[in-house]
């Protein structure tokens, strides 16, 4: 148990005059409490107006991504005592429009995601007696690509995205490669064509913030490197 101060960035769209401000809360944090537990404590016991998104509280839904001590992570996967500091700063994911307090609009990541056609595309009709099969080796190629929970941490941490709001973002590029690398997908060009653009693949400057930020330990930069190879191979013949 330790007394921890939480500095939380707040914003109420109905109080434009006040704008964005920092509010401090102090609570006793027992061992094992995640940041989401602490936010719940604050909301339920100290200030019912504190707004944030949450759902599964087990790192699967991606709702509670926020900037914790200057780094994006899921609140439900952040052990507060494990941060080893008496003051924890909590901010909404940067780069996205803030709706209220820690809740941001995820429209930019949905836009990027839809651009890469994030679904399996085929030309041949499906087999009538079974599903489209993959060998274990083909399936293994998708490890590290399919696990994305679309929390938005990576794109929000990306300086290229801060500078270019039309950049489709590392999450969308990871998703594009997830289908390009899929042995069952017969139209890789459909996923590659929309990203071959200055607001697409070529906007990545290999800064690796996305890799640092991903709460699922995925590597969008690696997927981006593979996509670059695919595109260049396609162009050179």
């Amino acid at each position, binding site marked *: 148990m330790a007394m921890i101060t939480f500095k939380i960035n707040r914003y109420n769209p109905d109080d434009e005059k006040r704008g964005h401000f920092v509010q401090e809360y102090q609570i006793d944090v027992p061992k094992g409490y995640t940041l989401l537990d602490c936010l719940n404590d604050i909301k339920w016991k100290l200030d019912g107006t504190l707004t944030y998104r949450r759902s599964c509280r087990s790192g699967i839904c991606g709702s509670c991504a926020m900037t914790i001590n*200057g780094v994006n992570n899921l609140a439900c996967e952040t052990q507060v005592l494990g941060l080893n500091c008496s003051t924890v700063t909590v901010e909404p994911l940067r780069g996205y429009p803030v709706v209220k307090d820690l809740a941001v609009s995820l429209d930019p990541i949905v836009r990027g995601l839809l651009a890469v056609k994030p679904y399996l595309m085929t030309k041949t009709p499906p087999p009538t007696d079974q599903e489209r099969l993959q060998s274990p080796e083909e399936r293994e190629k998708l490890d590290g690509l399919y696990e994305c929970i679309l929390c938005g941490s990576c794109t929000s941490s990306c300086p290229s995205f801060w500078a270019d709001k039309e950049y489709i973002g590392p999450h969308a590029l990871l998703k594009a490669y997830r289908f390009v690398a899929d042995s069952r997908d017969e139209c890789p060009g459909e996923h590659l064509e929309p990203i071959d653009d200055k607001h697409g693949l070529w906007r990545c400057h290999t800064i*690796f*913030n996305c890799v640092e930020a991903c709460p699922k330990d995925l590597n969008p930069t690696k997927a981006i*490197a593979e996509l670059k190879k695919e595109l260049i191979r396609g162009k050179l013949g």
Partner: protein
Amino acid sequence: MRVIKRYRIHMGTFAWILHRLSGLGLISYLLLHIWVISHLSGGERSFDGIMHSFGSPMFKLMEIGLVGVILFHLFNGLRVTLIDMGVMVEKQKTLFVIAVIIWLGTWFAFSAIMLSKMGLLPFTV
């Protein structure tokens, strides 16, 4: 109250910032270089005059700094090229450390040669 707005810097971000700054440094040098060379159109006298002012020991020492900037941009640029080719993407931090070690090693060697040519070392390299 101050609104916090800072994203924690790690090795990849640091490498990227240094790469951009060294790139800006190289562009500044290139512009200076073109400006100096443009004095050729003013004849021998004009060119000799400008070269003379760049011959001061201070500028000679700055040349060592320039070599450092070029070498950093070169070796980190090779790191970025490897990453773009999908080589050692998961080991980008190790790759940066390797690039920095090679950079410092070659810079040290170049500096020794340059200082020795200026007669600023008690021995010749």
